[in-house]
């Protein structure tokens, strides 16, 4: 369980400030302040990197001077930065924050550091919705694609995510009480079913559809537009705000459901808000950008090491770090294979998987969870 040397080392580190023994709130506030600065820096990186040589500095300089040196260049820079890179950076922040906070909330709700938004069926449902539109968009679902145009795919992904979560919630709720254990197990069954149906659609898909679906699955922020932000922003923003209400309840839930009730938490309400916030924000994120893995597990994990598991700090810090990381990952995705773009899911998985393993190996001996 615990190795003696580790225990001593950790004890010594925590006890540097004796008057606040075991109180990590000061450190948490400092980390959050640093994350705000980091997010701004990440945003700047996102605005300045890309296949074109458009320069933020030149754009700003041109805006201030009465007559730009070269009107053509100015207009091009403006277009690239304001209408391509900026929406992309903002959407990246929204998606990153949504995925990371959803991960932290799910881990709190399931009382397990390995829980993931996928556990409530969001990912498999969204995948099924997406593949349905890609494969059947010109066949059985033609009226839908005719009606919604390019929005048909994100709308179907969102609907799939929400429908799966809702069914899962209904299955796991009896007499007004939701069993998270049942939800976890039923989630496995639902995922298997959704994946089988996805597999069936893939089986009848042609090569072009197959390629479209594969790319959707790998995730990308390339389709970011101000319209997408106008839709995704409020949903994700509201969900993030809702997690502010549940932070204290999630802390108490770490003691177990009965203890949380004894401490005055309405546990059923807590579960409902968590599940609704997670499925709405992740459904939106997946609809906007496809499948982007690992953010929801890595970000809360790293932060728990730095500031501890108190959700009042962990949730906002996760939002900030998730947002920053995704923007940086997207900057890499755009520039690593210039002028082509890597799917961002590849970048997050390549960077995320080794970090995740490293955390596991490092933590294994300290607290066996």
């Amino acid at each position, binding site marked *: *369980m*615990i190795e003696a040397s580790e*225990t001593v080392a*950790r*004890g010594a580190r*925590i*006890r540097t400030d004796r008057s606040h*023994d*075991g*109180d*990590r709130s000061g450190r948490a506030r400092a980390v959050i302040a640093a994350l705000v600065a980091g997010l701004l820096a990440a945003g700047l990186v996102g605005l300045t990197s890309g296949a074109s040589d458009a320069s933020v500095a030149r754009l700003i300089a041109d805006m201030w001077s009465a007559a730009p040196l070269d009107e053509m260049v100015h207009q091009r820079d403006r277009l690239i930065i304001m209408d391509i890179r900026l929406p992309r950076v903002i959407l990246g922040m929204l998606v990153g924050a949504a995925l990371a906070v959803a991960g932290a909330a799910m881990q*709190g709700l399931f*009382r*397990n*550091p390995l829980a993931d938004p996928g556990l409530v069926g969001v990912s498999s449902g969204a995948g099924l919705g997406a593949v349905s539109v890609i494969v059947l968009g010109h066949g059985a679902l033609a009226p839908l694609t005719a009606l919604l145009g390019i929005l048909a795919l994100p709308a179907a992904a969102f609907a799939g995510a929400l429908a799966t979560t809702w069914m899962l919630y209904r299955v796991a709720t009896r007499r007004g009480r939701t069993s998270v254990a049942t939800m976890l197990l039923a989630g496995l069954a639902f995922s298997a079913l959704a994946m089988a149906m996805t597999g069936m659609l893939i089986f009848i898909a042609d090569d072009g559809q197959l390629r479209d679906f594969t790319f959707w699955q790998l995730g990308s922020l390339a389709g970011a537009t101000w319209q997408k932000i106008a839709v995704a922003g409020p949903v994700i923003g509201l969900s993030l705000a809702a997690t502010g209400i549940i932070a*204290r309840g999630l*802390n*108490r*839930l*770490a*003691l*177990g*459901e*009965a*203890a949380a*009730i*004894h*401490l*005055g*938490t*309405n*546990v059923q309400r807590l579960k409902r808000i968590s599940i609704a916030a997670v499925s709405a924000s992740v459904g939106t994120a997946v609809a906007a950008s496809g499948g982007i893995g690992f953010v929801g597990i890595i970000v809360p994990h790293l932060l*728990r090491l730095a500031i*501890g*598991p*108190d959700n009042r700090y962990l949730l906002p810090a996760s939002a900030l770090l998730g947002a920053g990381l995704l923007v940086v990952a997207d900057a890499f995705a755009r520039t690593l294979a210039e002028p082509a773009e890597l799917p961002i899911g590849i970048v997050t998985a390549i960077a995320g998987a080794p970090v995740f393993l490293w955390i596991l190996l490092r933590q294994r001996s*300290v*607290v*066996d*969870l």
Partner: protein
Amino acid sequence: MIITGGLGVAIGQKTIIADIGIEAPAGAVTAIVGPNGSGKSTLFGAISGTLAYSGSARINGHEVARLSPAQASTMRAVLPQAMALAFPFTVREVVQLGISDAEKPRDRAGRVDEALRRVDLTGFAGRYYQELSGGEQQRVQLARVLCQVWEPKVGGQPCSLLLDEPVSSLDIRHQLAIMEVAREFAEAGGCVLVILHDLNLTAMYADLVHVLSRGQLAASGTPSEVLTDELLERVFGCRLKVGSVPPPHVPFVLPQSVRP
């Protein structure tokens, strides 16, 4: 002040406890004893608001089933049997969970350290909960519970401590220390309802004893009224003799023999 009448709990088709009428007055330590599986923890579940029940269970005159979790949490705190914690919280963070946000920072200051001192864990605030032994974890939880009902009386109304086997994994010194904390809480006007297995500690600390057997109330009264040879055999199925001392060469130690 806790009073139940005709209290029953059924899980599925199975009746766990039935027709329990007990009282735990303010200013007293009330013990619940009984064999394993006699329904002690189920009774606690009903009184603490986590299990649905039939009949009546009242805290300070309020029916438990009609109290919201938030309302109930200001009237009583519950110490569960030893439990695991999901994430690496420090001891201070765990104890702080007992303090309501509604309380003024001025009232909260220093409470965690004082609570840890009362359960003899001074200097443990910076340790990880998971690093502690079972007995230490149990005392951390008690410190958290004490933080929740810090004043034994609020606005003339008693607060209640519900303790489910608070000394089950403690050494003898800490068994006595924790039972002293319970007694002080009662002497200051609070209400203490405690599940115990140790009949000697029960005799030493309880003002009132309720004995459960197979989901029914078998006896109620003061320790001397209840702890009889006849009852012990009937309830525990064990032929024991109250007040019998072993032969001179066999050592035995009673908590009552402790010197202050």
